[in-house]
């Protein structure tokens, strides 16, 4: 099995070369994306086959001479390999169609397969060196893809922030693995599993893993690069970064904290839980204020990562207190949400890409009415929006419902911190879910409904068949995940067994394919039946009204209380739609301000309204660090323009200092 994955990764690297050589002709594009599609399908199959199978491992004679490269495919790797295969296959299919609109294919085609290869290598790596190498390959390739449209406004800044944060993430993980390996230098994961860190270093390992993996996943407060970098890349790459790369980061967190770090301490759970809850709410609030469609989706990724981390935190807290059943439920819910997010976020980014190609606009205030010009895309986007808003009967609801069930287990936890944090985080999750629905009503309603707000939106055209097929595939998965959640939950059982030593009860054997997290008298949910009931009742309603009541239909001008607006500019925009929410939530959290500037009486100047929002994390954490770096650099600038005598003096002083310290040491 591991050989299939390794050859798939080799294939991807070969495709990267193909992309570099044949970037400029159509055949090269089709070869790269078509090849990636095939390889990703193979990765998907291998990942699913690895779930529940015995781990297969191999040592390759590459990498550091005294270690070699260890690779291993177990249930956890398989789960995430399947996500990579799934997201990669969809994005590649979309690339076959939409890739032809790419202006600079030579900046995309070589890096795209390399990015996929890097992600696949991360999840099968079984020693610290291979892991970090793959991690950095993934970071570098995605950075190159972010910089593909390097002349577009804001891309350079996005790329800069991303590379800084990616370096930070790599550094944190490097130190983390250094601590795990210990002074003996046992860099293979087997050695780390055999010797978990001592009680003191454990906390440091946890903190570094949280920072390193969290920075890649988009956890607050190390999320700032994500809403800049994800939207800057070409849309199918955005889909991969949001839908898949963040999952690889989650994998890194799980591998280190749940497996290599040994048994958790209870406050690990508390920290992750609280950070997850804050991330969820902050992410969705930012998404609500955003009028750039792709940035909105990126912020919503931050929100969903928060929900997943919240589940991880619960699992850690339960596991630390020896409550394996609860840990299994929380972990399964989190993993399920990660898989779901891969499906619907990929769908939404691909849809946003279709809109971008059709209109050239990402600003929602210049879109509108696309449901008429792009009916198929609009329908699929609607499916994605319902799924991500956690509404039944689609998949997003099931995973959030499971998370709620995990919160409601009311485990007898002895720690007061957890007793208070769990219900508070439950409230944050509920708030995030409700705000997400508001956010996606706004996103879909402004971009796809109403009347077109610009010429470009009025002249948009529908996507090609390939891209449509990619989106339709993800939409189907959103529905299937919602009506048949038992399939996914049962597939995740070996992963949760491996990580927390228990798994949820088998779901597919419950009558009517009902989902029962703990026991039937406690809670159950059946998406299939609900979907059937809704379909049946709407059918009854439609048939009855059309059979027994009037079925006549006339078209006329809009009523609008008797004063129809002549201009589409009178519609609500994305900014005006979120104004009530900005006033309710934004004034406190995002320091949203609105000032109205009235001209003096008699003046014919227009009145103006100014609004401002700011990210508290950026202002209080990053801006001071940036200022400190600039200040230090300014001081050190003095060293740049010295005479040769002084430089020689410094060299001499350094030498003396070193010799002196050596002498003192001995």
């Amino acid at each position, binding site marked *: 099995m591991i050989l299939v994955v390794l050859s798939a990764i080799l294939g991807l690297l070969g495709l990267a070369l193909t992309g570099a050589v044949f970037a400029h002709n159509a055949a090269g594009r089709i070869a790269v994306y078509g090849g990636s599609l095939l390889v990703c399908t193979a990765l998907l199959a291998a990942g699913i086959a690895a779930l529940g199978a015995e781990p297969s491992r191999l040592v390759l004679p590459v990498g550091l001479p005294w270690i070699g490269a260890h690779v291993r495919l177990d249930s956890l790797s398989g789960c995430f390999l399947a996500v990579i295969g799934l997201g990669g296959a969809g994005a590649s299919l979309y690339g076959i169609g939409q890739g032809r609109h790419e202006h600079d294919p030579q900046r995309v085609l070589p890096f795209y397969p390399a990015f996929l290869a890097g992600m696949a290598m991360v999840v099968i790596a079984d020693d610290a060196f291979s892991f970090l190498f793959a991690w950095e390959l993934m970071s570098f390739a995605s950075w190159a893809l972010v910089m593909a449209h390097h002349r577009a406004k804001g891309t350079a800044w996005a790329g800069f922030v991303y590379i800084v944060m990616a370096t930070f993430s790599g550094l944190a993980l490097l130190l983390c693995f250094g601590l795990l390996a210990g002074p003996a230098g046992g860099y293979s994961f087997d050695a780390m599993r055999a010797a978990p860190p001592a009680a003191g270093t454990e906390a440091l390992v946890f903190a570094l893993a949280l920072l390193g993996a969290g920075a890649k996943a988009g956890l607050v407060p190390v999320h700032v690069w994500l809403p800049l970098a994800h939207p800057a890349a070409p849309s199918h790459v955005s889909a991969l970064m949001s839908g898949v790369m963040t999952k690889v980061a989650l994998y890194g967190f799980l591998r280190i904290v749940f497996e290599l770090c040994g048994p958790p301490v209870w406050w690990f759970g508390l920290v992750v839980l609280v950070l997850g809850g804050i991330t969820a709410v902050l992410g969705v609030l930012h998404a609500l204020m955003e009028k750039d469609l792709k940035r909105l989706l990126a912020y919503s990724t931050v929100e969903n990562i928060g929900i997943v981390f919240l589940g991880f935190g619960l699992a850690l807290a339960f596991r630390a207190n020896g409550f394996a059943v609860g840990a299994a439920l929380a972990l399964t819910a989190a993993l399920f949400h990660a898989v779901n997010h891969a499906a619907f976020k990929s769908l939404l980014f691909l849809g946003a890409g279709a809109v971008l190609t059709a209109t050239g606009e990402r600003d929602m205030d210049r879109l509108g009415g696309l449901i008429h010009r792009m009916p198929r895309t609009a329908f699929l986007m609607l499916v994605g929006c319902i799924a991500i808003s956690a509404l039944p009967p689609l998949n997003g609801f099931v995973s959030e419902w499971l998370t709620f069930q995990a919160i409601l287990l009311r485990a007898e936890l002895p720690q007061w911190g957890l007793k208070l944090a769990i219900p508070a985080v439950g409230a944050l999750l509920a708030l995030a879910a409700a705000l997400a629905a*508001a956010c996606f009503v706004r996103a879909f309603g402004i971009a796809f409904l109403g009347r077109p707000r610009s010429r470009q939106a009025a002249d948009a055209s529908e996507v090609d068949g390939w891209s449509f097929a990619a989106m339709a595939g993800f939409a189907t998965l959103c529905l299937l995940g919602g009506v048949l959640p038992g399939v996914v939950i049962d597939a995740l059982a070996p992963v949760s067994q491996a990580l927390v030593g228990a798994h949820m009860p088998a779901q597919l054997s419950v*009558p009517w394919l009902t989902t029962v997290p703990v026991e039937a008298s406690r809670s*159950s949910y059946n998406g299939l039946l609900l979907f059937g009931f809704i379909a049946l009742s709407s059918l009854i309603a439609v048939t009855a009204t059309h059979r027994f009541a009037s079925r006549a239909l006339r078209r006329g001008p809009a009523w609008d209380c008797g004063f129809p607006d002549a201009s589409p500019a009178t519609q609500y925009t994305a900014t005006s739609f979120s104004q*009530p929410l900005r006033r309710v939530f934004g004034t406190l959290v995002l320091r949203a301000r609105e000032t109205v500037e009235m001209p003096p009486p008699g003046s014919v100047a227009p009145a103006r309204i100014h609004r401002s929002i700011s990210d508290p994390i950026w202002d209080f954490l990053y801006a001071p660090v940036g200022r400190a770096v600039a200040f230090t650099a300014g001081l050190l600038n003095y060293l740049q323009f010295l005479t040769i005598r002084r430089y020689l003096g410094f060299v001499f002083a350094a030498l003396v200092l070193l010799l002196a310290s050596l002498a003192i040491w001995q």
Partner: protein
Amino acid sequence: MIGDFAPADLAIQGGQMTLVLGLSPLLTGLVRKVKARLQRRRGPPLLQPYRDLRRLLSKDAVLAENASWLFRAAPYLIFAVTWVAAALVPTFATGLLFSWSGDLIAITALLGSARFIQALAAMDIGTSFGGLGASREVMIASLAEPAMLMIAFTVALIVGSTQLSTIAAMLSTGDSGLRVSLALALVALVIVSVAENARIPVDNPATHLELTMVHEAMVLEYSARHLAMIEWAAYLKLLLYISLIGCMFFPFGIVDGPASPERYLGAVGLYIAKLASAGVLLAVFETSIAKMRVFRVPNFLGAALMLGLLGVLLLFVSQGM
């Protein structure tokens, strides 16, 4: 429990679905009548909502020129989703045939789905009133929904289940005793119900002043059978919330398990009495209070959210003590 199947159960489930559908316009008619009497008006007859529905259903529908398929499909979807949600709430009997297919959280989310579609339909025509209604509706929902979930948490933590049938059965035995958290949850649920059903003081169901509208602004462009579906869904929603309050906080008289037809009839009678008294109380409440400004609503709903959270915290903290 799951998968048990008996023809009698099917009849009871079907009976409940028909009952809620048939009774809901009457409940709204009652509220309107009582409100009118309290204002010293004679008011429309009790059966007026049925007549309204019949009148709307027999008219030709007029659609705005740029209405999309979503606008046409939305009324049926809203109606269907609300009806399914209403059918999942125990009214006169617990343990209905399909009651295990959705719990209290799922019912909340189903209503969320209906609202999602409703808000989108409001934005479809591209008028400023539609956007205004949708924008305010999601603002209200973004506080009401978490408050509702907190109420669900409170009850679920006391009973150890989110299934409404189990909750009603457990609470009707009175084993849980009198709890502070339950009282907090009841107050929160009343506030949420008032907001969710677009009643005074959050919204005015009888408003004719466009700028104060929330729900009415969203359905402004609808006519004929489409409007009938939406109105009926709104009637159902009011009935759903009252049934919810009934089965969680006043569960006496609900039939638990198989019983004789006479007992079922008695339970239905008691249920109708509960509905009627809730309707009268709602009318009195609405008459005695003034409508709020839109930006006062968050404070009102925030209170519900905080009450719910307080109830949950009390339960978490008191465990093991």
